[in-house]
């Protein structure tokens, strides 16, 4: 078992037994559920909207080469720079070199999961650059030295008194309120200083619009706009799969993303950015860079069966509805992207051997696929990942042996009947000998959370035979 798998099992056991944690998540998700349902009701035909979003992303992903080049051309024409990063290292080095070359000492960041994925902040801090997360949730988890708990709501696992305590420890010992408004004011004062000190703003992108050559960003706190317009340099770091063909596609993608993310009709700030400040403009950065990160995405693109995983618009809906996420929480996954999309994607981005366990850590209930706004068949991809892991010989040899025996039994009706009979009889004997719950009892894992399974005295087949014999005599 990989170390990541061992850690996952340990953390899952702890978190799923932590009723307080479960309650916090449950409450958060209940209010999300209500908002999401209400939001969906506002859209006249939700299913048609999902289908349209799927088609847009499908078109984009299937012609990724063309749309990315179109985007690049427009950005360069406006005086921006585009850098194609094959992996995390290339992306981080580019941003770090740019910062060093231009004498940047302070960076403000708006929310971006790709920068988490490539570990950009640690790379910059190593070069002596101070990085401020400016999304409130991200700011909080940064103060706690934790990764985001959720891709949309990074600090959803904390309540206000925990946040007040954190602010007291890290920002101001005089804080005596845990009122969210007061806490926000504290964070705001701190972050204002950062915005005006920073020489570089880094943001992610929700969409890259090919025909207009602009970056579309949705935020709710206004921090995104400050990051992208106040500092003299703006760097967008994003995945290559974020491109969409046309500006008009935002007419459906924006509301669907907002609805799926938080239940809003549209996010508070919807921003389009196309390049550096032009002559005569009063604000905007002097330099504008876009870093297009591949980091394993091209390999996924080459996989015809699973290419649609690149449709993801990172709305978080699949995390919110996932019963596994609701019981183990975001940090247990130990990955940048938790929840169903993370369990599908991580084995592709970070290795199937190390992360295959995530694809197995699901009851395949399909709730994720049923909400995904771009209709990714998430649970089917989990199943395909399982198949790939098994075919790659990455599963335990004892399990492989067990399924070989299973296969023999299932191919032969008499072996099948004998197998059922043997299991029933031997378990009965085992329990009669008082060996229940010992290491000999194959049901002991089952019985940890369940009373022991009733053992029927005879199979359905035997009942059927008797019944038929009785009715024919």
């Amino acid at each position, binding site marked *: 078992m990989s170390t990541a798998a061992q850690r996952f099992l340990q953390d899952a056991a702890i978190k799923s037994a932590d009723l307080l944690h479960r309650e916090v998540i449950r409450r958060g998700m209940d209010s999300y559920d209500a908002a999401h349902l209400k939001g969906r009701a506002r859209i006249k035909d939700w299913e048609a909207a999902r289908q349209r979003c799927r088609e847009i992303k499908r078109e984009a992903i299937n012609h990724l080469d063309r749309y990315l080049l179109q985007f690049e051309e427009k950005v360069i024409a406006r005086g921006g720079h585009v850098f194609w990063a094959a992996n995390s290292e290339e992306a981080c080095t580019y941003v770090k070199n740019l910062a060093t070359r231009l004498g940047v000492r302070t960076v403000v960041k708006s929310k971006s999961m790709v920068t988490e994925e490539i570990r950009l902040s640690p790379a910059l801090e190593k070069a002596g650059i101070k990085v401020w997360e400016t999304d409130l949730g991200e700011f909080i988890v940064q103060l706690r030295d934790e990764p985001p708990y959720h891709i949309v709501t990074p600090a959803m696992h904390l309540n206000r008194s925990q946040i007040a305590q954190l602010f007291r420890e890290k920002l101001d010992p005089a804080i005596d309120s845990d009122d969210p408004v007061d806490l926000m004011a504290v964070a705001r004062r701190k972050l204002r200083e950062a915005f005006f000190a920073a020489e570089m703003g880094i943001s992610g992108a929700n969409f890259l619009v090919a025909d207009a050559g602009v970056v579309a960003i949705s935020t709710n706190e206004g921090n995104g706009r400050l990051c992208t317009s106040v500092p003299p340099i703006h760097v967008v770091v994003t995945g290559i799969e974020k491109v969409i063909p046309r500006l008009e596609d935002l007419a459906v993608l924006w509301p669907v993303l907002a609805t799926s993310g938080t239940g809003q009709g549209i996010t508070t700030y919807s921003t389009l950015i196309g390049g550096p400040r032009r002559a005569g403009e009063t604000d905007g950065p002097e330099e504008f860079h876009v870093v297009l990160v591949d980091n394993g995405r091209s390999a996924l693109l080459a996989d015809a069966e699973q290419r649609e995983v690149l449709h993801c618009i990172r709305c978080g809906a699949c995390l919110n509805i996932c019963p596994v996420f609701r019981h183990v929480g975001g940090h247990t996954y130990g990955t940048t992207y938790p929840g169903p999309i993370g369990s599908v994607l991580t084995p592709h981005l970070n290795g199937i051997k190390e992360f295959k366990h995530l694809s197995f*850590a699901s*009851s395949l209930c*399909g*709730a994720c696929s049923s909400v995904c706004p771009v209709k990714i068949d998430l649970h089917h991809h989990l199943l395909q990942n399982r198949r790939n892991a*098994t075919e790659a010989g990455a599963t335990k040899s004892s399990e492989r042996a067990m399924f070989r025996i299973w296969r023999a039994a299932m191919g032969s*009706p008499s072996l099948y009947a004998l197998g059922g009979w043997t299991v029933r009889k031997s378990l009965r004997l085992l329990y009669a000998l008082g060996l229940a719950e010992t290491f000999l009892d194959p049901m002991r*894992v089952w019985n*940890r959370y369940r009373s022991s399974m009733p053992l029927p005295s005879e199979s*359905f087949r035997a*009942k059927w035979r008797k019944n038929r014999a009785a009715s024919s005599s």
Partner: protein
Amino acid sequence: MLPQVGVDTVKVLRRLGYNLDYPEDQTCCGQPALNTGYWGEARPCAEHFVRVFKNADVVVCPSGSCVSVIRLLYPELLAHSPLREEALSLASRTFEFSEFLVKVEAITQVGASFPHTVTYHASCHGLRELGLREEPLKLLRQVDGLKLIEMVRSEECCGFGGTFAVKFADISGAMGNSKADSVAATSAEYVTAIDPSCLMHLDGILGKRQSPTRTIHLASILANEGPKNEGRQNDGPTQAKP
């Protein structure tokens, strides 16, 4: 492990006048191997299933999960099998029990009586793979004396998930207990579903909590003709496809 569901499915269908056969050569649809990633092992099992059932007019199965495998996964699993065409045809003739009654045959009144309070758990595969949201409820609403109490989050998974229940026992147990909390909040005497595997898992979870609520498969409710009382449903559900 749970032959009573098979028996009760047969009872209901016979009462409605269907001519039934139970091919004794049947084994399993292949789901345990398929869902654990062992497609190579699942394939011969699925082929065996197709061979055994290929002459049936209609296959009715009291498990939404098994039906979803046959309908939605066989086409992919057997894409290169010589039995592919037969598998596709079989998939179009295979129905989950409540689906067969309500959707195919337009029957909701089966003459059942069950004077108890019952809450319904929407098993995932029946609900999301086969789209059976209303069908089981329509049948339950027609049962004489039955009082249906809706549970919160009735569509959230109970946490069984096949080998998941053992590989990730702690998560499965926690999910089962959350479901049991929803069940307990209704104070219903019974919790029912259309999937034996969910019920087997829930029965164990409820049993461990010493909950007074018992599990019962939809078919076993519908099998009751008179207002007689059922015992703890211990001989419960089965994977049989009568």
